[in-house]
């Protein structure tokens, strides 16, 4: 068991190494450089020379190449040669291994602190919506499977599959339009009303703001989880041991909620374990639409604006969660299914 886990962790490290290389090189290939964008106006206004910028860039780990165009004006651009990116990568990796994730260009704070501080809200939203998903989707899925091709099955499936088919941004905007803008029941975004409420009132205010995003997140994933439950339940329902259970004289409810459910749980647990990245990583689009200052939105901005340390750290964080999620899924499998013994 321990051997198995160690082996998996070693493999995961290899994978993460690969991920980090690809991500770093891609991030460096972006035509936007946060530092450069920040100081360009000053250079244009003549408050700063290209040499100054070069020195500043060095501090941020970039290499500035200066050259003159045909008119003789001084220009500069980030050195995106392979060698430069490679050096940058080594620097990043060395710091990363030592536990230094770097400073965000935009916030001028250590990125791990930014991520840690923004994660709470995102986790809260995702977690609540996950709970709702599970308690709604699994019983519905089992019920649908028990009445395969029945009226209940069709209605539920059509309803939830339709809701799941909505793109998140479309659903989000529709929800904002109707519930926030037209009906005015809920606020259209942000975390609080900005009234400085504290205590229970503050918490209530936050919940009131978060209802719509939670609703959107729940609705979006319910369908697939339900469908998955249904498919697996159908498979279990055809198994020989279910016939045995019926032959014992067990009532249909007991057959379904004891014998069927326990077996359906096996694949479900792995699916739930793999929602780990989503749980901690935030919902990028939903947070952006609702203007929630969670980890997803911060990462979205970082990616768009070229805040390399933050983007890098966020992506590595997600990759790590993915790796842990799969490992967790396998371990959970062994817990739920007595037949599975983990070995190499």
């Amino acid at each position: 068991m321990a051997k198995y886990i160690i082996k998996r962790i070693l493999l995961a490290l290899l994978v993460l190494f690969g991920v980090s290389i690809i991500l770093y090189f891609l991030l460096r290939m972006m035509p936007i450089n946060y530092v450069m964008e920040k100081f360009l106006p000053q250079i244009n206004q003549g408050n700063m020379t290209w040499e100054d910028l070069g020195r500043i860039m060095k501090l941020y780990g970039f290499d500035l190449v200066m050259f003159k165009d045909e008119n003789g004006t001084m220009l500069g651009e980030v050195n995106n040669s392979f060698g430069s990116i490679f050096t940058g990568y080594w620097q990043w990796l060395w710091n990363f291994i030592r536990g230094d994730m770097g400073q965000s260009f935009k916030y001028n704070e250590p990125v791990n602190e930014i991520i840690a501080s923004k994660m709470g809200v995102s986790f809260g939203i995702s977690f609540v919506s996950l709970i709702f998903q599970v308690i709604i989707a699994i019983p519905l899925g089992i019920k649908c499977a028990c009445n395969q091709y029945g009226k209940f099955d069709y209605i539920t499936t059509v309803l939830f599959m339709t809701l799941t088919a909505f793109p998140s941004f479309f659903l989000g905007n529709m929800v904002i339009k109707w519930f926030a803008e037209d009906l005015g029941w809920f606020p259209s975004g942000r975390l609080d009303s900005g009234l400085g409420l504290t205590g229970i009132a503050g918490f209530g205010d936050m919940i009131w703001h978060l209802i719509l995003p939670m609703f959107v997140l729940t609705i979006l994933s319910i369908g697939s989880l339900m469908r998955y439950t249904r498919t697996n339940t159908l498979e279990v329902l055809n198994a020989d041991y279910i016939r045995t259970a019926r032959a014992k004289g067990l009532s249909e409810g007991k057959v379904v909620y004891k014998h069927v459910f326990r077996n359906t749980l096996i694949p479900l647990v792995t699916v739930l374990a793999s929602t780990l990245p989503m749980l901690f990583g935030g919902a990028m689009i939903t947070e952006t639409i609702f203007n929630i200052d969670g980890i997803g939105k911060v990462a979205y901005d970082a990616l768009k604006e070229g805040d390399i340390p933050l983007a890098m750290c966020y992506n590595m964080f997600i990759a790590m969660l993915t790796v842990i999620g799969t490992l967790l899924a396998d371990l959970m499998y062994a817990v739920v299914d007595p037949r599975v013994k983990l070995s190499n």
Partner: protein
Amino acid sequence: MADNNKKEIKKHYITRSESRKIAKENSRAIAGFEKQKKRKVRPEEYVTQMKDDKNIVEFEDLHTYFFSDSGTVKAVNGVTFSVPAGSTVGVVGESGCGKSVTSLSLMQLVQAPSGQIVSGSIRFRADMFKLDEKGKKIPVYEKYTDENGEEKIKLDEKGKPVIRKNGLGGNMYEMERQVVDIAKMPTEAMRSIRGREVAMIFQEPMTSLNPVFTIGNQLDEVGRLHIEGISKHQVKARSIEMLQLVGIADPEGVYKKYPHELSGGMRQRVMIAIALLCNPKLIVADEPTTALDVTIQAQILDLLRDIKGKINGSIMLITHDLGVVAEMADYVVVMYAGRVIEMGTAEDIFDNPLHPYTIGLQKSKPTVDKEADSLYCIPGFVPNPINMPNYCYFRDRCEKCMEKCSGEYPGLIKVSDTHSVSCYLYEGEEVKNG
């Protein structure tokens, strides 16, 4: 040649319009039967009388069909036979002859909605709970005679009447012996019979036990369900007793194990233990040894024989192996394409087989103690009972086929008190005073 091939192939496949017709008929038929099932059935409708009181089960003209995409499969097509109390009845036949479906019909376990019991009756003599006006079971109370010579109900410390315990350690309720028709019985009522009065052992010991529960859990479940008022401790004791009874050397250990940790033979023993837990009157064993090795098969057959003596019940043994039947059964029923073609005592069938199919079957099996250069074989293949004509189904494979065989399907002819056969060869040989 090629054209001929195409024609043959076309003839072989269902056309689109035929398929549509089948689908329409199927959905109509299934909807009808399902509606029938949902209807509330009063007990009077399914309580009947036995034809012969010696029997424990009587099948009469049972029809069980599967409404499949390629047509109605008449898996059981008018089966009539009975299981006398205390005996072992072997049902033999090749795959697709309807022997398993017959047994599943008895348990009401035919895979719905496509499979339905269409008509006929399965009469079973069961000990049913007597119910009061409210539909509740009537308990039997512990009584004593007080100093005045009056009979009084014993009360416990809290002043509640004490219910008498039965042999298994559960509460005793007033029972009545009823003959029920399983084919007409609602599933709700059937549940109290399944596992308590009739128990079933399935073919595949590897998949018939739920992989995620321990053996103990799966055994206890039956006890807790059917023996009301039994304590947790007693259930476990009963389960372990059963494991011991089926010859498991380390019952306490096996009780805690998961099915995948046991071998095929052991699992089949566990299945038998589950079946025996409530002292059923009838055990239906559907090919209990087919998936096992010969040496293990010998063990299991030995065990079944042993157990039948101990519980004083009957066994309905379904198998394709003539050897197993010869060894186990008192009575033998031979089935072919959904119909009973011959039945009688084991001696009747093995010493004096009448139906050409039965004869052929016995001769086509090589045996260890006989020498033969070439085996006898029945030509052709076992038919799939879809769209069957109304003449003897064995006609095309039969060597003794006569002109008469093109006529309608031959009825069962009783050639002796115990022996009947469904073949025109024996017309006129029947005994009248059967």
